[in-house]
């Protein structure tokens, strides 16, 4: 075999190193596929979000939606979300979208249309849909009332109460309740006819009621945040087939 000069050997080493480094960079970036394919991060997306796959493609990861949200509901995902890094989501139990914007500010702020600009009325938004996941723990279904702070004194969550100030959010911890029969999920729902309390029997003396979610539900997560039971009785189902513009 022909002996290579030092210069040639150096050149070969440089090329090999370049291949390795380039391969490593591409490999590292493709690791982002893992959480996406395995659906590690099952996220509730902000109002107007396109279907999950398109949402990840179209989002430019700038966080302008985070900045404009009046109740600071939106946060950006970390690297553990893979390709979803820097993409906004809402942890409804911690801070739901209270859906009290006239026009969702996040949608107006989005520069790429990842939060769809095709929405004419905010009621058209479909982030997900509320589901009663722990019916047995629901206070209303046990005929119980609720007195006190919905989520305790330390809970930092915000909400725009219509009877306090339509425009500025206050802490849920600053708004005590005294309810003969717990109907927090219905009471604080921002959407008309999205959820209602139905009697559980024909007996007029039976105080038990069950929350029933109806068609207009936008999946904002307000009921999930306000539910006083720990863990919550009601959660958002999302990322289901058919997000924005379609019925779940």
């Amino acid at each position: 075999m022909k002996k290579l000069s030092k210069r040639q050997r150096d050149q070969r080493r440089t090329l090999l190193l370049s291949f390795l480094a380039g391969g490593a960079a591409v490999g590292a970036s493709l690791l982002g596929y893992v959480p996406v394919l395995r659906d590690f991060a099952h996220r509730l997306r902000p109002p107007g979000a396109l279907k999950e796959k398109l949402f990840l493609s179209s989002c430019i990861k700038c966080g302008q939606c985070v900045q404009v949200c009046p109740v600071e509901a939106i946060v950006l995902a970390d690297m553990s979300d893979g390709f979803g890094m820097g993409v906004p989501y809402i942890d409804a139990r911690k801070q739901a979208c209270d859906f009290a914007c006239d026009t969702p500010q996040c949608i107006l702020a989005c520069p790429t249309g990842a939060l769809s600009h095709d929405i004419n009325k905010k009621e058209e938004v479909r982030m997900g849909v509320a589901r009663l996941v722990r019916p047995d723990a629901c206070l209303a279904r046990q005929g119980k009332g609720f007195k006190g702070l919905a989520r305790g004194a330390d809970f930092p969550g915000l909400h725009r109460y219509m009877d306090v100030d339509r425009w500025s959010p206050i802490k849920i911890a600053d708004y005590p309740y005294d309810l003969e029969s717990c109907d927090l999920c219905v009471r604080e729902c921002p959407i008309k006819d999205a959820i209602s309390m139905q009697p559980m029997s024909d007996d007029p003396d039976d105080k038990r009621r069950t929350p029933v979610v109806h068609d207009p539900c936008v999946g904002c997560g307000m009921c999930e945040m306000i539910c006083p039971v720990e863990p919550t009785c009601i959660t958002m189902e999302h990322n289901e087939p058919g997000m924005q513009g379609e019925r779940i």
Partner: protein
Amino acid sequence: MKRFLDSFRIMLGGEPRRPGKDDFTPEARELHAYKRRPEVAKKRIAMIREEQENPVLVIKWRVRRWISIIIINLLFVVSFWYDVQLIEGALTASRVVGFHMADVNAALQVVLAYKVLVLNLLIGIVTVTIMWWIVGGRSFCAWCCPYHLLAEFAEELHLWLAKKGLVKDHPLHRGTRSVLYVIFVLLALVTGYTVFETISPVGILSRALIYGAGVSLLWVAVLLLIEIFYTRRFWCRYICPIGLTYGFVGKTSPVVVQYNLNHCLHEGKCIDVCLVPHVIDMTRKGRADDVIINVSADCTRCGRCVEECPTGALTFKIRGTGGLL
């Protein structure tokens, strides 16, 4: 035209070539011949020696740049934390007093992955392209990119360790960046995800500054460690497609670093400090084919060579102002 294309060839990874015999202008040929005279060469060496004995540290441009990087990034942070709404968003996309801006490379990834271009994003891309074209294209890197600032300190550390013989630079082929550029374009197109954004330390750092730190900062730390211990300016020199994007943008920029063969002592201090030394290859003895040459495409307008040059052979100029500026 030839120099124009050659500038792209070099930016994409080609080696600078020694000019052919007929490539020199008569003035340049004459000047090279003059510099080769024994008495002139002797004088030049004496000047280099004298200057090496009395080194002057100039950090004027570095300080200006660091202030620029810090202020721009701080504006994002302050705008959010104090709700002044001056610059909303992050470096990938923002609204400056209501006006859309979008990082050209990030926007490219989104457009390729999503295959839709909304008007706001187009406005953002055009605005940013024009803005960086005016000030030099890759001036984004040197004057705005938060990773560049960290990498500069990592580089200082690398050079200090190298001087002590503790580390050695392992250069890569510069064509790596061009190949990766194409790969990331194809990946966005084929997978439908903004794949590059997953490893972009620019986006990661910008978001970390504004919205708070996360695990992703570990990736930035890994890159910095590579730059300190293994390959000098690993990311900016050999990987980052953002730099290449802005390199194209800045090819014809009015703001340039200009080389003047008259003043040059060919001692190579500029090449030692330059992030992209292939753009100032003409400072090597006998390589300049003209007396005045504008440094092109890949130059980040960082001003390190301007600072380092003791004779003012490299200076910032604004093209088309007849040397008034």
